[in-house]
């Protein structure tokens, strides 16, 4: 009975740790957006500077090539940095601090249960779901942007070499379909995880009502 309680409690606390990590996604969404927007501003600034210098100073092929590659690098670099930043924030969330308390057995499990602030946990789960959803959307949009930029470069090369080109709407639609197909595993994982969070919420609601109705003696 004691082992079952400890094991159930370990499972429960692990799920809560996961919620804490997802909750940190919401907290890092402004940073994610700032990094992405910053990279777009930087890429557009290089583009505008290059156009102005070509117009007012004169054509400089070397500088144009450097600027072109800089523009092509800045946006993908922004996406990668933003994703790495969110992951870093997620990894920095302290988890497993309950393990030492749980090692004490049933008294430790009951102590952990008594320390739980239920309202905060339900709020955290709601935020975790929101963060998980928003991050998924932002990631798809960022990869779509990257795919569009890459396809435009490819289109430009095809036009340059073969004198053929794909129209803009096709480029946009094709890149969206490609990103959705390539992200299908991530989308499925995200959908399942949202379902799990819903399930956890219901389970906790039930657990909360049971726990509040029971009398524990440590």
């Amino acid at each position, binding site marked *: 009975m004691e082992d079952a309680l400890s094991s159930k409690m370990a499972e429960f606390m692990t799920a809560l740790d996961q919620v804490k990590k997802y909750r940190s996604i919401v907290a890092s969404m402004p940073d994610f957006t700032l990094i992405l927007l910053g990279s777009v501003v930087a890429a*557009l600034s290089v583009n505008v500077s290059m156009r102005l210098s070509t*117009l007012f100073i004169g*054509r400089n092929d070397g500088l144009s090539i450097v600027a072109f590659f800089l523009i092509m690098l800045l946006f993908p670099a922004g996406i990668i940095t933003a994703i790495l930043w969110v992951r870093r924030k997620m990894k920095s969330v302290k988890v497993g601090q309950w393990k030492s308390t749980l090692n004490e057995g049933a008294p430790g499990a009951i102590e952990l249960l008594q320390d739980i602030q239920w309202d905060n946990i339900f709020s955290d789960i709601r935020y975790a779901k929101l963060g998980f959803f928003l991050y998924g959307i932002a990631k798809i949009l960022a990869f779509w942007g990257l795919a569009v930029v890459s396809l435009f470069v490819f289109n430009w090369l095809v036009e340059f070499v073969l004198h053929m080109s794909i129209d803009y709407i096709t480029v946009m639609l094709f890149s969206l379909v490609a990103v959705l197909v390539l992200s299908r595993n991530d989308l499925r994982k995200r959908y399942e995880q949202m379902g799990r969070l819903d399930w956890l919420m219901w389970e906790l609601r039930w657990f909360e009502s049971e726990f509040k109705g029971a009398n524990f003696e440590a």
Partner: protein
Amino acid sequence: MKKIWLILALTVIIVAQVTFMSSFHSTFTHSYVSGTSAVVVSKMKYAYARVSIDILSSHFNSTVTLTFPNGTQQEITGHSYTMEVFLPRTGDFLGNDAIGTIITTTPNSPTDSDYDSLPRISLSSKHPVDADVVQNIPSNFLSWYDNPNYEFYNKIDVFWFEIQGEANIFISGSGMAI
């Protein structure tokens, strides 16, 4: 909360940058010429333009001569010759006048519709910089341009020069209408 304002500020900057970028325009043309031809670069007065003109002789021994409107002549002896022309902003017209002005005129004659098959100076608010190569030009080429009665005289700038000889001409230009 500060981050939200920073996000708003960056979004405003991006919208401003994209709007500013819409004022940049480009033009490109390529042509093979022989006999007496002309390169015509035109722009709306409210636009800046820089045009790069590459002239490649068709034969190594052939001579290509450029004649500018003021009578100056330049003989090109090498295989290739590149020149850059910068046309500054020289005037302004605003509102519907700027948006609604669409100029399509043959360089030889702005009024004669018999010249419809010839290259056209084609300018509008969406294409404020243009470059054309016109073959077999008459002696009074572009004489209309200095005529103050020409309805678009106060709206466009035209730079041109004659080319005598056989050559391939590549013109690429960029402009900014602001």
